């Protein structure tokens, strides 16, 4: 099944995960593996680009919660970008903007990692 795909690339030493499709209880383990693999390689600066993410349920949201602490302990972060209003609404409903930095564009999130005033 190709209902959910993850692309990965590096920009200025920040890891970008591009999510595509439907993130639910069935596909959430794929995202979990992607985070685990990055954190194992001590890549703690992560931007998740949600441009092509069509759907997210609480199983997907739970994955973000599972790894944010590890990323921050490694002096990095998980930042989210390019969400459709539909996907943003689900994050917003659960108060995620309190805990996660969410940007309109990927480059803003990448730049934020190098913002010394933060």
């Amino acid at each position, binding site marked *: *099944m190709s*209902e959910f795909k993850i692309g990965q690339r590096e920009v200025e030493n920040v890891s970008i995960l591009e999510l595509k499709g*439907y993130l*639910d*209880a*069935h596909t959430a383990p794929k995202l979990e593996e992607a985070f685990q693999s990055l954190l194992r390689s001590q890549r703690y600066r992560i931007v998740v680009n949600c441009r092509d993410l069509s*759907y997210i*349920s*609480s*199983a997907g*949201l*739970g994955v973000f*919660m*599972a790894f*944010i*602490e590890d990323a921050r302990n490694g002096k990095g972060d998980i930042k989210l970008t390019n969400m459709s209003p*539909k996907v943003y609404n*689900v994050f917003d*409903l*659960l*108060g*995620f903007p*309190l*805990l996660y930095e969410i940007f309109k564009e990927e480059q803003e999130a990448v730049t934020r990692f190098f913002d010394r005033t933060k």
Partner: protein
Amino acid sequence: MKTTSIQVESRTERLIAVRDFVSEAARAFGFGDEDISKIALAVDEACTNVIKHAYRSDPTKIIQVNVSADNGTFQVAIQDEGLRFNPTQVQPPDMKEYLTHYRRGGLGVYLMKSLMDRVEYSIVPGKSNEVRLTKYLPR
């Protein structure tokens, strides 16, 4: 009253079929895209709870989803014959506290209540559980 239903095996790969089924019924009833998304997500959460909690990921079990639509009321009943789980006993989480402590799981019930107009639960002890999710068509 118009009633339609779908039966699926208790497997997470079947969630997409349930979402599609419910979305189509909601669209036919007259809901717009935003409400259709809310209904599909709420039903996904209910089914995910059944798969993980009531059936403990046993893929041989069956989930029954019945949609009834009448007089501006759209109701989805999700039935299982698994372990008892009563979402009315789940307290609404303090989201800031919740997120601060990075807890996982338990978000599904909160989402269902936020997305739908009514969430009801009935249990026939030792026999079946039913979650009923209701949304009213905007006038």
